[in-house]
């Protein structure tokens, strides 16, 4: 029955996506073009990787707003490093560096959250400032336009290239494989490792998890390291796809990512959420963000639309929850 319940949220989101797709394609048939679909997928890559990390945090009952800072930090430092040593090899090295930086920063989060048991929102609010401030003050605040060749070639690497009806080429970047890999790994961890089930347990009831013998600190260490690594890789991907390293970028989009994860069925109180739901949530947000232009709505309305989606998307379950609680109160009164 749990699978049925989860599927319910996911089905709803999927239906919403389909509905939107229909609406947008009616307004502007370009929506259904291969090029547009590839564009949507391309836009989902970075957000999707972020969202997977955020999913893991939210399932454990926490929240993280520092991941964007980790991402831009890792991205910028990696770029500077690669340029400094004039590295000509594969971008794999770059990704490893970015992942390690993300890991280190994630461990800082883990320190405050696991060791000192502090509120995750406020800790990550603090570390977001800490990381970004440090980046801009110590590492640098210059926009770097000539990024390493390895990054550019990675960005140009395409998975599929199709010739469209009007003779141009539409391509799907290979980076999408990164997202697929991240999703697979996340799913495997959450579903098949004891650590992953421990994350759900922690989100369900911290006290019960302690009593059952789950190593809470180790689990939290893993969670925030995982987010850090994913964010680092996502940051570098972002820099590659955008062909520049701008230290003022990325931070500011945390809310969109959190919205996507929550819309995909993860509950902010913890214990619930799935990879599939998260990916669907991301896709929903991406469609909204990208398709307004197609529908002729100026991009300034983006935030309004996202805001409304968040409110409705969280309002309806909250309202239903209230009604269910009122009924449950009677049962608990026993």
């Amino acid at each position, binding site marked *: *029955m749990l*699978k049925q319940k989860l599927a319910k949220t996911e089905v709803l989101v999927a239906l919403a996506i389909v509905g939107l797709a229909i609406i947008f394609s009616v307004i502007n048939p370009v929506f259904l073009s291969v090029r547009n679909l590839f564009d949507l997928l391309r836009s989902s890559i970075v957000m999707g990787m972020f969202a997977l990390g955020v999913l893991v945090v939210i399932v454990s009952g926490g929240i993280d707003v520092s991941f964007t800072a980790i991402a831009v930090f890792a991205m910028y430092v990696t770029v500077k490093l690669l340029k400094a040593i004039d590295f000509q090899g594969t971008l794999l090295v770059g990704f490893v560096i970015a992942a390690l930086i993300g890991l280190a920063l994630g461990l800082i989060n883990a320190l405050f959250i696991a060791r000192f048991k502090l509120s995750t929102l406020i800790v990550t609010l603090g570390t977001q400032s800490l990381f970004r401030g440090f980046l801009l003050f110590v590492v640098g605040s210059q926009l770097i336009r000539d990024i390493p060749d390895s990054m550019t070639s990675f960005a140009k690497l395409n998975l599929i290239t199709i010739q469209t009806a009007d003779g141009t080429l539409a391509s799907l970047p290979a980076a999408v494989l990164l997202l697929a890999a991240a999703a697979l790994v996340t799913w495997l961890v959450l579903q*098949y490792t*004891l650590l992953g*089930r421990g994350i759900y347990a922690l989100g369900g009831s911290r006290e*019960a998890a302690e009593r059952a013998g*789950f190593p809470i600190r180790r689990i939290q260490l893993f969670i925030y390291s995982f987010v850090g690594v994913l964010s680092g890789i996502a940051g570098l991907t972002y820099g590659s796809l955008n062909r520049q390293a701008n230290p003022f970028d990325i931070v500011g989009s945390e809310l969109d990512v959190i919205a996507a994860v929550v819309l995909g069925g993860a509950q902010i109180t913890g214990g619930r959420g799935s990879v599939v739901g998260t990916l669907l949530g991301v896709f929903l947000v991406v469609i909204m963000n990208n398709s307004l232009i197609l529908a002729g709505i100026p991009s300034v309305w983006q935030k309004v639309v996202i805001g409304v989606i968040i409110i409705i998307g969280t309002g309806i379950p909250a309202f239903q929850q209230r009604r269910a609680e009122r009924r449950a109160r*009677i049962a608990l009164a026993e």
Partner: protein
Amino acid sequence: MTDVLVQLSNVSKAFAGVKALQDVSLTIRKGEIHCLVGENGSGKSTLIKIIAGVVAPDEGQIVINGKLFPVLHPIDAIHEGIQIIYQDFSLFPNLTVAENIALSSQLAQGRRFVDWGEVRQIARQALDRIHVKLDLDAPVEQVSVANKQLIAISRALVHNARLIVMDEPTTALTRREVRSLFAVIKKLQQDGVATLFVSHKLNEVLEIADRMLILRNGRTVIDADAREFDQARLAYYMTGRQIDESGYEYRRPPNGQTPLLRVEHLALPGSFVDVSFELYPGEIVGLAGLLGSGRTELGLALYGIHPARSGTIAFEGKRVRIDSVQDAVKLGIGYVPEDRLTEGLFLPQSITRNIVVRTIDHLVGALGLTKPRDLVQHAQFWINALNIKTRSPELPVQTLSGGNQQRVVLAKWLASSPKMLILNGPTVGVDIGSKSEIHAIMKRLASQGMALLVISDDMPELLHTCNRILLMKRGRLVEQLSSQSTSEDELTRKVTED
């Protein structure tokens, strides 16, 4: 003595100078159903924690399976086969039944990866062992309380429990579910698993126990074969005296005075139906019944927490609707909750604040401002009136003992001079001395014209404070008894029989 599982000898424990346990010994044998009986404050919880290794005794010896443990850690207790089922069951509401049962065993094996096939198999086997069928994939939050308990027991069995300690397991169960639980415990006994069953419900204890340990004020009163006991002896040993409270007499004034509350055909589908009764000022009416009988829901409906769907309510002769707590409060109805920690008190806040919360809107002067000194004086008045033991009204209410905390809750309501007070388990978790004082307060209030509705599990309490008792069964009001005309045995029988 090889069949002795757990042997606690002369164990003592004090918390901050107050002795919770003094020189208590306990012997649990293999396959034995042992009951730990005592009022709240008797030391039961501390004893359980010592057995679990969560708390270390100041004095005394712990021997488990023939091994002496100078220091017992929780993990040692678990390795020796001791499993504790706490009152909240410690389950994961968001995980499935199978996961709740089997996951921690995978953890204990030191595995990294989950073998779902094995998880299901283990869960299935554990449930089979106690002859229970449950949907393995159901999320535990959707499962009934009784089944949650069975899941907790199954989980204990998965860890090869040799002794399962259950802390007040029947608190949230209906009569039928209690019988199922007892059947499971007996089955465990056949398998050689011992049970330490902690309870204060006398009739249940007598039904299931082989041996009994009665505690009072941290000391052993009796450690004996359960079959030597009957309820009266048991009650005597638990409380230390014969219940000698006098009852409450109420004389209805002649010439039909209007009832304060008149309820007709009140119904809340799923909880109670067709409930009709009257309540007069000056009466103390009891609501008796088992869990599931609708007595608590009726009380909550009258207070507006979960309003009735149909039927009529007349207050002071006028038809009213009680659809929310505000409605009830405006009429002058108050509610003293059973779970005062969650529902009645603001623990870290001062006693003053706890007392004035209900009446604060009336304590404001011009410009809607309050004078802090007035508030403290107000609180002090009630501290004196109800004999609340504290050094200062500004201390946080969590520094008070259970009995004094309950008095603060009472003070909060009395401060608003309600016409009617609904009390749900007014003396649960309260020491003997406070208990009789609270009863005295209740009678005083009634004699001054308040109407009280008392919901309680405690038959002696009902008999000694109420002039009339309403008996509920399966959502219906089946009988109204005058407390003069019935005895504790008869009342217990009527309440518990099906």
